[in-house]
Every structure is written in structure tokens, then in C-alpha cells.
């Protein structure tokens, strides 16, 4: 003779089994999504790496130097182009004291 508690146990097991079945496919679906996201990340990383290589190719010193000379009329820095900050301060003092006037 089967009693109510036993029925409850059987239904409980069936309920858990069905839930687990659904969870399994839910998880699998999520894992597929996750794997696809990971794949997208890898592809994006690969694209970024190519862009990084291209950027470094474009900013290589010989190219920048050529562009700076040809397009911007720049030239290498000479010692006379470099000033010490102290010299600038003393120049300011001279101007303030009216010595240049």
C-alpha cells in the first residue's frame, strides 16, 4: 500500500528531474552564448592586434620624420632651441625690473 508521503516523494523526484532537464538545456544555451562571446572577444582581440600593428607601422620613426620634414617643415632640435626653466624665470625678472626697456 502506497501512502501520500510516498506519492509526494515520487512527484518531487519527477519535478526535480524535469527542472534539471530544463536547467541542463538552459545552461547549455548559456554556454553556447558564452563560447560565442569568447569567440567574438578573440576575433576582436585579433582585429585590435592587427590595428595595433598597423598603427605602429604608420608611426614608425622613419615615416614620422619624413612627414614632419616634408609636410610640417620641422627640423631636428638644436641646442639653441632648448632653454632651462631658470633662464626663463630670470628673463621674466629682468622684464619685471624694466631692464630690457
Amino acid at each position: 500500500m502506497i501512502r501520500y508521503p510516498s506519492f509526494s516523494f515520487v512527484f518531487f523526484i519527477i519535478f526535480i528531474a524535469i527542472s534539471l532537464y530544463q536547467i541542463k538545456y538552459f545552461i547549455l544555451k548559456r554556454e553556447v552564448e558564452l563560447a560565442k562571446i569568447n569567440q567574438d572577444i578573440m576575433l576582436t582581440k585579433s582585429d585590435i592586434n592587427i590595428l595595433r600593428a598597423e598603427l605602429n607601422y604608420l608611426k614608425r620613426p622613419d615615416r614620422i620624420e619624413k612627414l614632419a620634414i616634408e609636410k610640417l617643415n620641422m627640423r631636428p632640435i638644436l641646442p639653441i632651441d632648448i632653454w632651462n626653466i631658470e633662464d626663463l624665470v630670470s628673463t621674466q625678472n629682468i622684464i619685471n625690473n624694466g631692464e630690457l626697456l
Partner: protein
Amino acid sequence: MPNIRKGKLFVCGFILMASFFTIGYRTVSLANINKYDEATKVIKNNDTSSYIKKNVARGDIFDRNKNLLATTIDISSLSINPQNILNKKETISKLKIIFPSINETILLKKINTTKNQINLIREITPKDHVDVLKAGIEGIVIEKKNKRVYPGNSLASHILGNTDIDGKGTAGIEKSFDNKLLNGQDVNLSIHAGVQHILKTVLSEQISKFEAEGGAGVIMNVNSGEIYALASFPDYNANNYRKSSDEQLFNRASKGTYELGSTLKLITAAIAYESKLIKETDLFDVSKPLKISSRIINDDHALKLAINIPEIIVHSSNIGSALIAEKIGPDIQLKFLKKLGLFDTIKLEIPEIGKPQIITDKKKISTMTISYGHGISITPVHLSAATASIINGGLKVSPTLIKNSLKNIKKKRIFSNNTSTEMKNIMRLVVSNRYGTGKKAEAPGYLVGGKTGTADKVKKSGGYFKNKNIVSFTGGFPINEPKFVITVMIDNPNGQKFSHRSTAGWIAAPVISKLVTRIAPILGINPQTDKTLAFTNQLLKYKIRGDEL
């Protein structure tokens, strides 16, 4: 009856326990086990062409400022499975539209085979990839592959080296750090891309100008030994390694050994001061050539004088240097050369390193010729390290290509601080004094000091070429408080009308001037200050005499 009841109860209990156990086990397994297998299987089944294997990409190589020097990118390659092609002519005509360079006859021959895969194009662009997919060509297989690229092309190519078709390092840093790079770890070099470019440009211009066979240059921090730039000519584009000649691939800076001539006189003078066997006031008669056994030692510009050590270095007197060496003796000379590491291969982080050759027979003639750089072949990196030890206060320097690698290593003392100070003064005189051989190394605004060297080129079969020489210059800047050592070597330059002679003073020294002017602002070295004026003034104590006396 009670037994039957017990039996039923036992069976029900067992079924319930087994069910709970199964559900529990499955819950755990779903949570932990085969986490990726199920998903990757699904992705594989859905989309085979775009699936990428999850592997570790080879690490990148950076310069000291994190500029990318070498990296690995994904490329697509095109293959075809002839067994999956129904209409071969249609397939070929479709391919021809996208890839016009394809030869139809050869391709038809190729696909008339029983093979399952034929490689068509090793590298296709992303646009071609899309076009191939859009064209719906039968039997096409597009595979993702890794490719090592060097964005700087020929910048530091001798340092970076290369990898083989399987991505294994075969030369340079790629070979030395193969395991680290294969594990996806990056390598940060001590190289400064900007300084490297300037060295490469200035040196190659001079090599072309003097129609030389080649050359090499090294720029190194005098204290840490970090190499900021290392160049060798002829060079090559690192992306075309396999197409480059042996001559281009040869690293003259770290593997090539050369007799670097009078630059070695710096070492002779430093040994003389350090050994205390010679006083600064001691004079050496250089008015007559020295005849040792069958060999005659003479000077380019014979002086009718007896001169002291600073004058010997400034005038670059072979006779004077030989007389110093005679007084020091072979034991002390060889002991210091060994201490400076000129007997051993340099411990640089690339496989392309050369072993010095030195005559160690301790004969008088050998001691004398070694003193001015004959009978001793070393690499430009060896000379840089030795120069650094002379001007950095006397501490041994181990050159390195890796950033901060030798930061905490205690350095051995080779020369005293006094010897180092004396040598810095003399090196400055070589450039600033009217009789100095290195006057063309002067970079207005910066204090440069160093020594020139012109030596007959050694034949591979032995002996010397009559009309071929090696010119070099080694020095430091700012010489009052040295931060960097620069060594350049030019192999077999041809004297031009404007240069009068093919000596180091005319060919190698101007390279230093151009280099210092351009790299000093990048390296944060300011032009002259009060300190440097004080240094220049104290050089007045040296009375350098010349021909007019």
C-alpha cells in the same frame, strides 16, 4: 506479510535514493564537468570556417617606451579540396575574378588530383576573404594562421631576429626568449626606437657617402649597460628575413670582430694610470720609429718631441702607446684586458655574439701592437662596454638588451675614480684640442669626448689589406658626467674628395657629432650649463704641444 511490506519499503526507498543520487550527480556534473566541450561542439557544428582554436599567441616585443617592435597577427590562407568541386571550370573562373594573378592552366592541373587539400594562397586580405565567401566557390577552405610581423621593418632587425614557419624563434631576441614568448609573455627591450632610428639613419648616410662595405653602431647607458640602440649595416627588413642575404643578416655590432685600432689606446692609457707605473709627467720620445725585431712602429704624423700620456692620446701616437705598453708589461696589460671582458664573448641576450681574438704570447711586439689596437679583434659592443667602464668611474659594465635587467647587480671595480676622471679629461681633449684627432666629433652645446681609431683591415686568410681599413670612434657624452657611450665602426670606407683621407677623424667622428646633436634632446640631456663650463676650464691645465714646437 510484514516481510513483503518491508521488501516493498526497501525497493521504494532504494528507487528514491537512486533517483536523488542520479539527480545530485547530474546537477554537479552540469555545474562543473565538460563546461566548454558541449558548447564548442555546438559552435563547431554550426560554423566550421570561422572557428578559431583557443591557443596562446606568441608574446610581443616592445622597445623601452612600449612601442611595438614585434607581434603576431591572424592571417587567412586559402586552400581548396578538389574532391568537393563539381564544376572545375566555374570554380577556376570565379577564383580568377578575385585573384587575377592565378594561372588558370596551372590551377587546373593542380585540382585534377586525388588529394583532399591543395594550398592556393598563403595569405589573403580581409577583403579577398569576404569576396571568396560571397562568390560561393565550391571546395574552398579558409584557414586562420598566425603570422609574425615587425611594424618597424628594418628598425632593430638584427636585435629582433626572426621566427620560422612554425613560429619558433630562429635568431635574435626571438630565439633567446623563445620559451617566454611561446608562453604568451612579452619582452621589453632596452632599445629606444627613436634613438635606434637616428643611429640607423646617420650611420647609413655616412656609409653611403663614403661607399663603405658596412658598419655598426652602439649607443649604451654607461652605468646600467642598457643598450639604447644597436645597428649593423647592411641591414634588412625583418618582415623579409628569408629573402635577405647572409651579408645583410650578419650582425657586425655584436658578432663581427674587428681590429679597432687606436680606440684601444684609451685602454692602454687607463691601465697606465691605474697601474701607477707611469706618472703623468713621464715623457716618451716619439721622434723616431720603433724597430722591434722585423717590425717598424711609426706614427702618421711624426712629432719631433718627447710627449706625455695626454699628448700621446690626443695625437694618437702609435709609438707613444707602444712605449707605454712596454713599460706596463704584458702581464698587467692582459690582466686588465681580461678584467674588461675583452677575452670573452659578451653576455648579450642574442645568440649572434662574437668571440674576441687576442694574441696572448706576451712577446714584446705583441704587447706593443695590442696597445694601439693591432693583434686584438673585438666587437663594437666589447669596445662600448670597455669605454663605459673607463668613463663611468671605473665600474665594469655588462651590456644588456633588456630593460632594467641588471638594475640590482653589484658592479666590479676595474679602474679608480681618479683614473676615470683623468681619462674623461683626455677624451675631451681629443675632441676639443686643436691637435685632437676627433675634432669633427664636436657637437656644439654638448660636451663630447672620445677616441678615433683607423686600422688596416684584416684579411680572412691572414695579414692585412694594403688599401682597406676600418675606421671607428668610441666616446661618451656629456663627458663631464657621462650618461651614454657611443661607438661607431665603418668598414672599408673610400676616401672622397671632400674628406682628403679615409681616416676615422674624417669619417667616424662626424657621425658622433650628428648623433649627439640629435639624440641628446630625446634622452633629456641639456646643452651646456655652468658645470660644463667649469669642466672645460679645468682642462686648461693640460698643455698639449704640437708640430710647431
